[in-house]
């Protein structure tokens, strides 16, 4: 009986996220709290499942970026209801990722999608934003102990900034502590190799696969 109620809430939440329905997501999340359903399970089986489905629809070109953004709006709205109710012990230690758009570039939709999909997959993402100097990536990774530094650019003019991040890590003897991955229009896996980065991903889903592969899963 209880299992059914849970499953119904989870399915409803997942559908609400896929349907881009922020209000319904919030009210189902609240209902889940009232029914005493575990918040962690609700997030994982409801919100995250919905966002994964939205990601699949995006890969199949059923959904485009506008739809994906509204799905993520719904997911985050549900998340802010559920997060305060997470039991401490179910909050697992997660691998951290520092992400941002290189200095000289303010295109950040691609970066935001990668962030959404990484968070959906259970990573903790520190988002530096856009137009970020190379040094800030290295500093923040050091400060937070993030395993992964994810760099994005859509401009050919700013590709060199990615190179610079790798060089800064080398100069500070930090290269073996962080792995650097890159993405965005003008870059490629050949470019990643050339600047000595650890990987390249052409889109948000591949970025998640890459981060999982480099970190050996979600746990730190």
């Amino acid at each position, binding site marked *: 009986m209880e299992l059914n109620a849970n499953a119904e809430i989870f399915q409803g939440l997942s559908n609400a996220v896929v349907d881009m329905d922020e209000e319904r997501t919030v009210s189902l999340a609240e209902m889940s709290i009232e029914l005493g359903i575990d918040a962690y399970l609700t997030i994982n089986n409801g919100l995250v499942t919905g966002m994964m489905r939205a990601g699949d629809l995006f890969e199949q*070109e059923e959904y*485009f*970026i506008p739809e994906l953004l509204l799905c993520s*709006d719904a997911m985050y709205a549900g998340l802010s209801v559920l997060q305060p109710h997470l039991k401490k012990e179910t909050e697992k230690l997660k691998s951290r990722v520092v992400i941002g758009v290189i200095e*000289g570039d303010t295109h950040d939709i691609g970066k935001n999608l990668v962030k959404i999909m990484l968070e959906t997959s259970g990573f903790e993402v520190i988002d530096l934003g856009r137009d970020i100097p190379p040094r800030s990536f290295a500093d923040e990774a050091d400060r937070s102990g993030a395993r992964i530094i994810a760099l994005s650019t859509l401009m*050919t003019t700013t*590709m060199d900034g990615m190179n610079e991040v790798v060089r800064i890590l080398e100069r500070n003897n930090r290269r073996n502590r962080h792995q650097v991955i890159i993405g965005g229009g*003008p870059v490629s896996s050949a470019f990643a190799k050339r600047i000595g980065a650890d990987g390249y991903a052409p889109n948000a889903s591949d970025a998640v696969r890459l981060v999982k592969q480099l970190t050996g899963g979600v746990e730190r």
Partner: protein
Amino acid sequence: MIRDLMKPAERLKAYADGSPIDRLPCVPIVGNIAARVIEEKVSSLRNNGRLLARAHVAAYKRFGYDGIRIFTDLYVQAEAMGAKVRCPSDETAYLEKPAVSNTDQIDAIRPIDTPKSGLFREHLDAMERTLEAVGKEVPVTGALTGPFTNASFLVGTENLVRLTLKRPRAVHRLCEVSLETSLRYAEAILKTGCTPSLTDPMSSSTLISPKQFREFVLPYLTRLVDYIHGQGKAVTLHICGKTHPVWESMADTGADCLSIDNDASLLAAKSKVGSRVRLMGNVPPAAVMLQGSPGDVRREARRCVSQAHDNPRGYIVASGCSLPTETPFANVDAMMDAVREIGYPVNEISPVDGNG
């Protein structure tokens, strides 16, 4: 080295008429490389019509391509409507802040009545000077940003795409004021004797769905193309990124030539819309033109020619997008030379025969 036997204007006219030509038209879209040719900083061209013209005339003379496009960046219209643009001293300008940060302020955005502000004036001045210098022998166009893309600079891309689903009427309003500005600017460009050349990257299927293209892009581009046609000029429409789902809609705008980037297959474009529009593209700007060797460039140019030279409405060898400013001159030369070597009519091309 093989020399050109015809001037670009002559070649393009003969190509359109089906008369003999020495080679296919070729346009490496040089963008701010023009600044490198006259050894000036990129930012010094943006607000200086005399220098901008000198750079583009010099670049044309240096490389010998078949079309000059007066262009510094995509933000000329949006800046006049309130967007904030940052201009690093020696790199292409970029958007710092959209015109409004709060979508409630959309109604306050007004179109530009007459493109008289400094930046417009300098760009128009550059067009006039370029025409005067070389307009008899080569077509000169003025870059015009498409309404949907301009709208993204007014409210921010993420806001705009959210609005497409949440408040479609607000998006239409933004496109409408952008269109009005574009029409006024197009009118001024045409008055100089140049033709507007349309760029609308934010409308690609990398960002929005084909259905949204038909709703928010097609009507506005169509009105713009109709207007330019009404003034007796042909129109090129450039959209970079993924475009295969919208090729037919792009042709529906009435544009005469579609410029597509490397994220698209020329063969597929040819079979889908080649009987309706001329094609141009799709030598990869970053991976090949910027980072490749002259040999890589030759191979890519040959691949493009072999795929598209028999396009029913014609083909212009071109880079898939504006070239990065640091693209080596040797690679631009290699692209031109490859097309000169192939000549016309195009015979059998072996794709590996690129001894760069």
